[in-house]
């Protein structure tokens, strides 16, 4: 039984009944539609709301032009681990657009997503990518250029807790990958760098948005470390003059994996629509839009047009430095892992 139809009409009718009785509200647009369009659900990560609010209307127009069918795309946003869990418990998303490879793997392990999902779409099924960058205060008073500046005694850092936030995990891994390269794999030096790095953290927020609030609104810390895309959004939101973006010469590649949730897409009769949605993300039109939201894209023409906004930097892959996400999670973030030990010592 699909409640969608029932409820779509029900609360709206309830609402209209109430609204119409109140003269103040009676001018609101009534959206009675006789034939509901086919609907699909995209379950996504927290900070992608604005992005997909912009992508979806364009996708709908694209789909209509290609298939002569009007569709509707619904969005669900939350921490991507929470989303994966909800989908396993029955949130019937047709596609996932996450910011954590591990969270799609969880769905693959549960049999909801194909085992070979990373091979089904180009670039490891990541239509766009980003990296970890720094946001510093006006004029970059401490002259922060790269990762080695972040361990100085006079610098205090803000980034979300790697234990609870994928964003924070990228920051941690990026710092480690830098140190690994800088000290040529010398474990003692890497660990001493990481200890100083973690010791300079002023506040560990649970998520990316919380860290932003701490840095911008509470005015704590000298450097906010988060996704390059987010760093640019913050600058646009809170004032281009008050903050500066620093992209370090070496950082980590942050992939934004997408996959069709086969189990639900088939059941919802949305198999074609779900695949079409992911295909669309790779079209030049969508890639251009993604670049507007400060994500790096692989489309060569779009990338070339935006090259001034995305400074060239060496991006290390988690697979190459840490042997893949499962290994990185196990070694670094598991209970009693490297992160716990670094913070204890």
């Amino acid at each position, binding site marked *: 039984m699909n409640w969608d139809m029932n409820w779509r009409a029900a609360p709206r009718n309830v609402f209209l009944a109430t609204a119409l009785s109140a003269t103040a509200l009676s001018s*609101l647009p009534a959206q009675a539609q006789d034939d509901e369009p086919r609907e699909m659900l995209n379950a996504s990560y*927290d900070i992608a709301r604005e992005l997909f609010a912009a992508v979806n209307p364009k996708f709908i127009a694209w789909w209509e032009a290609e298939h002569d069918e009007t569709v509707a795309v619904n969005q669900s946003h939350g921490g991507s681990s929470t989303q994966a869990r909800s989908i396993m418990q029955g949130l019937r998303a047709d596609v996932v657009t996450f910011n954590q490879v591990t969270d799609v793997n969880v769905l693959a392990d549960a049999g909801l997503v194909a085992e070979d999902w990373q091979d089904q779409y180009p670039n490891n099924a990541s239509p766009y990518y980003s990296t970890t960058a720094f946001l510093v205060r006006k004029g970059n008073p401490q002259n922060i250029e790269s990762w080695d500046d972040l361990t100085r005694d006079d610098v205090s850092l803000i980034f979300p807790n790697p234990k609870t936030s994928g964003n924070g995990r990228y920051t941690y891994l990026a710092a480690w990958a830098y140190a690994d390269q800088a000290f040529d794999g010398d474990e003692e030096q890497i660990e001493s760098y990481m200890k100083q790095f973690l010791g300079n953290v002023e506040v560990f927020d649970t998520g990316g948005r919380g860290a932003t609030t701490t840095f911008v609104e509470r005015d704590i810390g000298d450097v906010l470390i988060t996704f390059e895309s987010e760093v640019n959004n913050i600058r646009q939101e809170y004032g281009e003059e008050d903050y500066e973006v620093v992209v370090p010469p070496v950082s980590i590649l942050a992939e934004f994996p997408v996959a069709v949730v086969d189990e639900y897409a088939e059941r919802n009769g949305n198999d074609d629509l779900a695949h079409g949605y992911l295909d669309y993300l790779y079209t030049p039109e969508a890639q251009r839009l993604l670049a507007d939201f400060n994500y790096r894209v692989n489309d060569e023409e779009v990338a070339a047009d935006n090259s001034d906004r995305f400074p060239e930097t060496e991006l290390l892959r988690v697979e190459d430095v840490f042997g893949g996400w499962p290994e990185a999670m196990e070694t670094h973030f598991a209970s009693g892992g490297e992160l716990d030990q670094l913070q204890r010592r």
Partner: protein
Amino acid sequence: MVRIGDAPGVRRTLIGIALALTALFLLLPLVAIFAQALASGLDVYWQNLSDDYTLAAIGLTLLVTLLTVPVNLVFGVFLAWLVTRFSFPGRRLLQTLIDIPFAVSPVVAGLVYLLLYGRNGWLGGWLDAYDIQIMFAWPGIVLATIFVTCPFVARELIPLMQSQGAREEEAAVTLGASGWTIFRRVTLPKIRHALLYGVILTNARAVGEFGAVSVVAGAIRGQTNTLPLQVEQLYQDYNTVGAFTSASLLAMLALLTLAAKAVLEWRAARREIAT
């Protein structure tokens, strides 16, 4: 006889403290909500209010409340009647069980529902086989809200009905009245006020419930977002004005509820004087 607090100085200080605290903790936040919501002017406020997603959130919140309140009204009266008018083994236990939703954190309540009705849950597998979706759709939200708000009516009624005793009902029985007549003509008039208060509390909580609902809703914009969830999402989107616009709706609903309660109480008091 002079009691403590009779001295004009003491009295004035106490009243002053009470008023100041009320203003600081209750009035000021309320004013702040409306100030923030209207910070960018009435046009923006109206725009935010007529946003499709906000309208859907209002609709869903009304639906949930309209389903929850009657269910818990009937359930609460039934439970209170049972516990106070009959004696049976397990009566005490039942009285304790009523309080579970109060004792348990709403988040836990939500998780328990997931455990039961989720795809991997005890009942979930069966429901899934028949393609019935409870979680991450409005039925799940209604269930979670019913759970969280179910003690309010019973908790208001039980102490009152206990103190009133069953004597009048017993008299009615000896006069040959049927159960339904006893309830309607004898019990109901005595408990009307407490019942009303219970309904108002149930209503307020049903509209405002966040924790349990957020676990079972799945955060689908325009579909499973109730008003409180919508407030949080807008706030996380850096849309402060939008968030406070939705919050102001919740505040207005709260004020309306209180006004309705005051009017009903006032009318009841007048009727009592008249009789």
